[in-house]
C-alpha cells in the first residue's frame, strides 16, 4: 500500500498559516485536477478551518511527501510556511491518521463531530471528480465507519464544549421541555447569535432578540424567525421570558437585581434562567440570591466546558480501540487483494491441467465414462485446492504486514512454477508426456 499524505493542522501550524492554506470547494476541485495530472492516481483533499489534508496514491513508486507540499504551495502560495508545518504520513500511519481525524480525537476540540461530515464531503467530492479507486473507496467507507462508531459506541462527542452550548445544557437541567418555554437573547453580536441559534435549534416556543442597535436585532430576528424586544423597554418585558441570555458589550449591568425582582413578582415566582455570557457581565450577579432565579456567568459555564472536555479526553483510549479494530479489518481486506491474483492463477493452472488430461482420453472411452471422469477430475481439483486457498486467504487476512501475504503468494507461485513463461513450458512438457 502506497497511501501517502500531508496534514497541516492546529498541532503543526498557527491559525494564520492554517487560514492561508485553507481551500474552498472550487480550489479543491482545481487542485485535484493538478494532483491527478502530476502525482496521484487517486486521492482526496480535506480542508476545514483547522486543517488541510491531502492524501493519495502516487503514480510513481517512490513519491516524497514534500512534492505534495510543493504542489499545494505552488497552487496556494503562503509566506513564512515551512516544511515543518506539515505532518507527513505513509501507509499504515496515513490510514491511522485518517481514522483519528474522522473520529474527532485529532481535532482542536476533542470529539468534534463536524469533522466527520466534512470528511464525508471530502471523499464525496473526490468521487465526483473521478479521483477514487477501489482501495480509496474502501478506505473512505472505513474512515466514515470509524467516525460513526466513535460517536455511537463512546462518549467522545458528548457534553457541551462551548460556553453558549453549556448554557443551553444548564437550561435543559432546569426545564424539561424547551418547546413550551420562551427565550430572550440580549445582544446580537457573534456570541448572541450563537446562543440564539442554539435556542432556535432546541425549538423554544418563542424567541426574541433585543439589541441596542435595532437594525442588528432585526437582522438576527428575521434570520431566526424571532421577535424583537426594544432594548430601552427590556425591564418591563423581562417577565415574559423563561430563559434570558445576555451577551452585549455594555460596560455596566444591563439588568439590575431589582429589575429581576420585579419580573419575578409579575411571574408569580415561576422559575427564570439568566445566562450572562458577556464580559464584562450584563446581569447583576446578586440576582442569583432570588428564589427560583437560576443565574450563570461565563466562569460557571466554563466549569462545565472544562469538565466535559476532560471527560472526552478520557474516552480517547476507547476510540483508539475502535481505530485499531478497523485498521485490522481494513488491512485484512487489503492484504487479500494481493493473494487474489495468486489464487486465480493456481486455480486456472489446475483447471487447465485437468482439461488437458481429459482431452487425451476423450476419444478412448465412452461418453458416459468420460462424464464420470470429468466430474471426478473437477471434484479432485476442488479438494486439492481447497486447503491451500483457504490457508492463503487466512494468512492474508490475519497478517497485518503486507509482506506476509506477498511472500506466501510468491511461495505458491514458485512451488507450482507459475509465472507466464514457466507455465507455458510446463504445459508443453505435459503435452509431450
Amino acid at each position, binding site marked *: 500500500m502506497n497511501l501517502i499524505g500531508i496534514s497541516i493542522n492546529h498541532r503543526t501550524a498557527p491559525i494564520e498559516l492554517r487560514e492561508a492554506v485553507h481551500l474552498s470547494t472550487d480550489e479543491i476541485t482545481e487542485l485535484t485536477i493538478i494532483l491527478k495530472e502530476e502525482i496521484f492516481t487517486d486521492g482526496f483533499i480535506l480542508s476545514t478551518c483547522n486543517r488541510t489534508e491531502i492524501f493519495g496514491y502516487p503514480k510513481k513508486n517512490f513519491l516524497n511527501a514534500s512534492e505534495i507540499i510543493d504542489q499545494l504551495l505552488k497552487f496556494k502560495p503562503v509566506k513564512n510556511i515551512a516544511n515543518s508545518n506539515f505532518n507527513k504520513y505513509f501507509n499504515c500511519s496515513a490510514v491511522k491518521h485518517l481514522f483519528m481525524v474522522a473520529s474527532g480525537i485529532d481535532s482542536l476540540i476533542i470529539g468534534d463531530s463536524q469533522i466527520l461530515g466534512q470528511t464525508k464531503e471530502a471523499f464525496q467530492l473526490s468521487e465526483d471528480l473521478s479521483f477514487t479507486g477501489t482501495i480509496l473507496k474502501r478506505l473512505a467507507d472505513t474512515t466514515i465507519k470509524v467516525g460513526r462508531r466513535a460517536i455511537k459506541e463512546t462518549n467522545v462527542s458528548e457534553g457541551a464544549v462551548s460556553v453558549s452550548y453549556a448554557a443551553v445544557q444548564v437550561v*435543559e437541567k432546569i*426545564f*424539561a421541555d424547551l418547546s413550551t418555554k420562551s427565550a430572550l437573547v440580549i445582544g446580537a453580536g457573534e456570541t448572541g447569535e450563537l446562543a440564539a441559534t442554539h435556542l432556535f435549534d432546541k425549538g423554544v416556543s418563542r424567541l426574541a432578540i433585543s439589541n441596542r442597535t435595532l437594525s442588528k436585532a432585526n437582522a438576527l430576528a428575521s434570520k431566526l424567525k424571532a421577535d424583537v424586544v426594544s432594548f430601552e423597554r427590556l425591564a418591563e418585558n423581562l417577565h415574559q421570558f423563561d430563559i434570558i441570555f445576555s451577551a452585549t458589550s455594555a460596560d455596566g449591568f444591563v439588568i439590575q437585581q431589582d429589575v429581576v425582582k420585579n419580573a419575578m413578582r409579575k411571574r408569580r*415566582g415561576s*422559575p427564570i434562567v439568566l445566562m450572562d455570557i458577556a464580559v464584562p457581565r450584563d446581569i447583576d450577579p446578586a440576582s*442569583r440570591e432570588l*428564589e427560583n432565579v437560576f443565574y450563570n456567568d461565563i466562569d460557571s459555564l466554563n466549569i*462545565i466546558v472544562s*469538565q466535559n472536555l476532560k471527560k472526552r479526553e478520557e474516552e480517547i483510549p476507547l476510540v483508539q480501540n475502535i481505530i485499531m479494530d478497523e485498521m485490522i479489518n481494513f488491512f485484512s481486506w487489503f492484504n487479500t487483494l494481493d493473494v487474489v491474483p495468486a489464487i486465480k492463477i493456481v486455480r486456472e493452472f489446475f483447471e487447465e491441467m485437468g482439461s488437458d488430461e481429459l482431452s487425451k482420453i476423450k476419444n478412448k472411452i465412452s461418453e458416459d465414462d468420460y462424464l464420470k471422469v470429468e466430474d471426478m477430475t473437477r471434484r479432485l481439483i476442488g479438494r486439492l485446492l481447497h486447503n491451500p486457498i483457504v490457508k492463503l486467504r487466512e494468512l492474508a487476512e490475519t497478517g497485518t504486514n503486507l509482506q506476509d501475504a506477498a511472500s506466501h503468494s510468491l511461495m505458491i507461485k514458485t512451488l507450482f512454477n507459475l509465472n507466464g513463461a514457466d507455465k507455458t513450458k510446463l504445459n508443453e512438457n505435459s503435452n509431450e508426456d
Partner: protein
Amino acid sequence: MLETIHFLNTALPLFYLATFIVYFLDFKKQKKTLHNSKRIFLFLSLLFHLFYLLSRTFEFSHVPITNKFEIFTILAFSIACSYFLLELFSDIRGTGVFILGFSVLFQIASSLFIEDLIEVREVLRSPLLGIHVFSALLGFAGLTMAAVYGVLFQLLYKRIKLNTFGIFFEKLPSLETLEKLNFYSVIIGFILLGIAIGIGVIWLPVAFPDYSYLDPKLVSTLLVWIVFGIGIFMKIVIGWYGKKVINFFLVGYTIALLSMFLSNVLAKSFHSFY
C-alpha cells in the same frame, strides 16, 4: 413448594442487590449496555418476587400481611414495582438507584426474620384486608418515591443555584421532570391511600366489634391523606410549583413517618395484628 419459597427468600435480596448494583453502575458510568439491561434485571426480580408472594399466599393460606416481616417483603415489592411502572411509562431511567435501595433494605430485613406462619388470626385471612393492606402499602410506596424525588429536586436545585456541576447535575433529569415525577408519585400514593382508607372504613365495623373511628392509626393516616390532598389542591388549583410544592410534600412525608412511628410504637390501637 416450601423449598422454592425458602430458596426465593434467600435469593430475593440478592436479586434486588444485583439490580441495585446495575442501576448504581449505570448512574455512575452511564454505559450504554447497562442503560437497557438494568430494566431487565428489575423486571426479573419483580417476576420472581411476585411468584414468591403468590407461593406464600397459597402455601400458607393467607396473604403475606400477617406480621412485620411479611409486610416488609410486600413493601419491597410495592416500591420496586411502582418504580418499574413509573420508569416504563415516563422513560426516565436515571433515578432508580435512589428508589431501589429501599427495596433492597426491606427485602433483606424480611428475608432475615420472616417465618413460615400457618396459624394466623381469622381476621387476617379476609381478602378485603388483603386489598386494604396492599393499597395502603402501595400508597406509602408512592409517597416514599415522591419524597425521594423531592429530595433529588432539592439537591439538583441547590447545585444549579450554587453552580456546582457534579454527578447529580450530570445524571439527574431536569428539575421540571423531578417535580413531575414527585407529583405523579404523590397522586398515585394519594389515590391508593384513599382506597385503603375507604376499604378500612367499610370493613372496620364488620371485622372489629370494638372499633373506634378515633383510633390513633386511623386518625394519623387520615391526617397524612388530608395533608397530601391539600398539597395536590394547591398545585392544581392555586398554581403552586417548584420548590414550594416540593417542600410541602416533603413536610407531608415527614408527618407520615412521624405519625406512623407514633401510632405504631407509642399509641395503643385495635388496629394492630402482631
